[in-house]
């Protein structure tokens, strides 16, 4: 048993900390978030140069083979800096789908380019009626001579605007809520019939509604086995959920640090408000939640790497449930303890609060994961 970071992870952490310190102050982040594509292509290239994009991928495709535990340091830093670049959308969701479901040819044509920062992916899995049920897919792909004809609507597709390919989950057979009959398709975003409506998200990122109207793709666009994509989708979303739990740890750490700092400087009733025990105990609650979250984020990453279904789903759900708790213990309390300034757009705290809040929703909220946890 060893729960210390490996040397590679520590080195990665150091270079990420330097990057955040020099390139990613809050002002610059806000500027980036509010213009154009919502992030910096130059930063993306720096990530590629630092080797960041290949952390979890197999070495034969140019990755570092550090697996899910390697992602802990990346995602924690992304949380710490409220990083806008599409690491989750393109590398974790898109890249893991290709790594897990793709055939050799697909992997070779996509992964090295993805890791080099030359190509980006997005994953369209959410549907209007589906909520968190990954099997509730109405989008249809019908077999035609030489390929598939796809029709449907996909919602809240993160970073679709700058993706070169969209991976779409579609029903190739079965009823709307059946786990069988779901397939994945890798679609060039410029394919005729693919339309986008891009927007900013409440936490400063970018997403899109994607319409697929009589989109014709070749048979080679099929990613993984026909009708059998459900387990892959579930596995990749577990990996992504484990990753955002590590991101949450980074966010919570910042909220705790900034709130404690504020308690040490803000004066009322002729003293710093950190002297008040009722406030001290609340930041201690934040600290404990942070440590417990960190524990569960590590556990989830380790279990994802081990690859056993039961322990994976159980630990990922546990980490997500705890992130839901952190929303009230950390995010809401951080805003409360900052007083009025905590609800202004000007202060970074409000933006960490927003991200942590939305991380609770992403990949299934606390209630969803409590149910899933109980069933395993």
């Amino acid at each position, binding site marked *: *048993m*060893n*729960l*210390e*970071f*490996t040397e590679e*992870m520590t080195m990665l952490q150091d270079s990420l900390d330097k990057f955040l310190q020099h390139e990613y102050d809050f002002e610059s982040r806000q500027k980036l978030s509010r213009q154009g594509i919502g992030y910096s292509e130059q930063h993306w290239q720096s990530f590629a140069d630092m080797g960041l994009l290949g952390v979890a991928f197999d070495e034969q495709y140019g990755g570092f083979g550090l697996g899910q*535990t390697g992602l802990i340091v990346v995602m924690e830093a992304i949380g710490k800096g409220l990083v806008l670049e599409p690491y989750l959308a393109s590398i974790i969701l898109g890249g893991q789908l290709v790594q897990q479901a793709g055939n050799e040819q697909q992997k070779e044509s996509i992964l090295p380019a993805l890791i080099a920062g030359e190509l980006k992916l997005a994953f369209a899995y959410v549907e209007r009626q589906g909520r968190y049920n990954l099997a509730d897919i109405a989008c249809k792909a019908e077999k035609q001579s030489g390929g598939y004809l796809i029709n449907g609507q996909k919602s809240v597709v993160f970073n679709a605007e700058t993706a070169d390919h969209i991976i779409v989950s579609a029903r190739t057979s079965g009823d709307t809520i059946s786990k069988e009959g779901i397939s994945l398709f890798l679609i060039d975003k410029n394919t005729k019939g693919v339309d986008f409506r891009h927007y900013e998200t409440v936490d400063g990122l970018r997403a899109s509604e994607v319409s697929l109207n009589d989109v014709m793709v070749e048979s080679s666009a099929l990613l993984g086995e026909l009708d059998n994509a459900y387990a892959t989708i579930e596995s990749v979303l577990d990996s992504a959920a484990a990753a955002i739990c590590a991101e949450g740890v980074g966010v919570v750490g910042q909220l705790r640090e900034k709130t*404690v700092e504020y*308690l*040490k400087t803000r004066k009322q009733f002729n003293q710093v408000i*950190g*002297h008040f*025990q009722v406030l*001290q*105990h609340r*930041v*201690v*609650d934040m*600290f*404990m939640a942070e*440590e*417990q*979250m*960190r*524990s*569960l984020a*590590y*556990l989830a*990453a*380790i279990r994802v790497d081990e690859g056993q279904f039961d322990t994976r789903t159980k*630990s990922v759900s*546990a980490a997500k*449930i*705890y992130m839901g708790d952190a929303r009230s213990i950390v995010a809401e309390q951080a805003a409360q303890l900052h007083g009025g300034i905590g609800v202004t757009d000007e202060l970074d705290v409000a933006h960490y609060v927003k991200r942590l809040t939305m991380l609770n929703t992403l990949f299934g909220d606390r209630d969803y994961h*409590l*149910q899933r*946890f*109980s069933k395993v």
Partner: protein
Amino acid sequence: MDLKYTEQEQAFQQDVREFLQANYPADIQQKVAKGIALKKDDYVRWQKVLADKGWIAPGWPKEFGGPGWTPVEKYIFEEECGAANCLRTVSFGLVMLAPVLMQFGTDEQRKKYLSDIYNSDTWWCQGYSEPNAGSDLASLQTKAVKEGDHYIVNGSKTWTTHGHYADMMFTLVRTSQEDKKQKGISFLLIDMKAAGVTVDPIITVDGMHVVNQIFLEDVKVPVENLVGIEGDGWTIAKYLLQHERTYIAQVPRSKKQIDRLKTLAKKEMYNGKPLIEDSQFSAKIAQVEVELMALEMTNLRVLSKLSAGDSPGVESSLLKIKGTEVQQSITALLMETVGYFGFPYIKETMLEGWQDEPIGPEEASVLAPHYFDWRKSSIYGGSNEIQKNIMAKAVLGL
């Protein structure tokens, strides 16, 4: 990063498991599993078995007779003991006083006390709290006045666990009045059979007798029973607490209790289905399980740091708070599981030898008393609020 035990650790785990299977008395096991009150003899009997094996004092350095285990091995031992429903060894002598004697005691004191502690030949109790010194322990008023080669001790100690079993008591007394209340406190060993020592039982909310109030009236204590130097008691008390808390979370025990809870919730029916299938009830179990998973991992992270050579820090406060919260949540859920059958109070069911027909589910009648009794856990060992004060100061710098 991985959670797998090394081959060596797995072999150790197997050794422990086999030893417990072969040597842990079945009657004690049954008592622990059913929540029946344990007697002095139960403790002594089991502790002597462990002492013979050389496993009674995992925290002691090798030169004093400790087994020389790594932090992970200590955890494995605790894990296996939890899984086997082992009785928890009494910590006053083994875990609290012994490290103090090793660090601050004289050679004579070590010679006189350590082997009796190791062999469970002396039963120690702790004389810390007083009627007017609880969370504010440093305000304690029990006085020790030096007269020749004795201290004359007057005052009262309370919440003394198993004081009625004890041969000796380690205690904090005031030897002088100073400008700061933490100064002028000394660490004194008192013979419970000495003239002037009275033990009064305190019956707790479950109807049982575990804790006591101790009255000390002109008790003569030889000066050689002073540990460390006079006035150094507070430093010693803090040192003792560090040793108390590394395994305070009691994760293995709580895991066993979750198993017990699930087994019971599968048997109890509600709306024609096992209670465990009720979505609201199962969500409540899930929430405790999640907290416990996090706690276990936090505990392991602390151990991993210890293995890497770091010393234990304020994590112990976190482990104490979360550990006791989990324990209390489980006792509450256990009580809720049996619904109306929490009502019957038959004290004898908590005692050895009760054979009558149970009212409602077997085990049910101990669950409410245990729930009430377990409220103590967030109060003792430094209340959870005090733990938060400690963390606010030590971790967050407030």
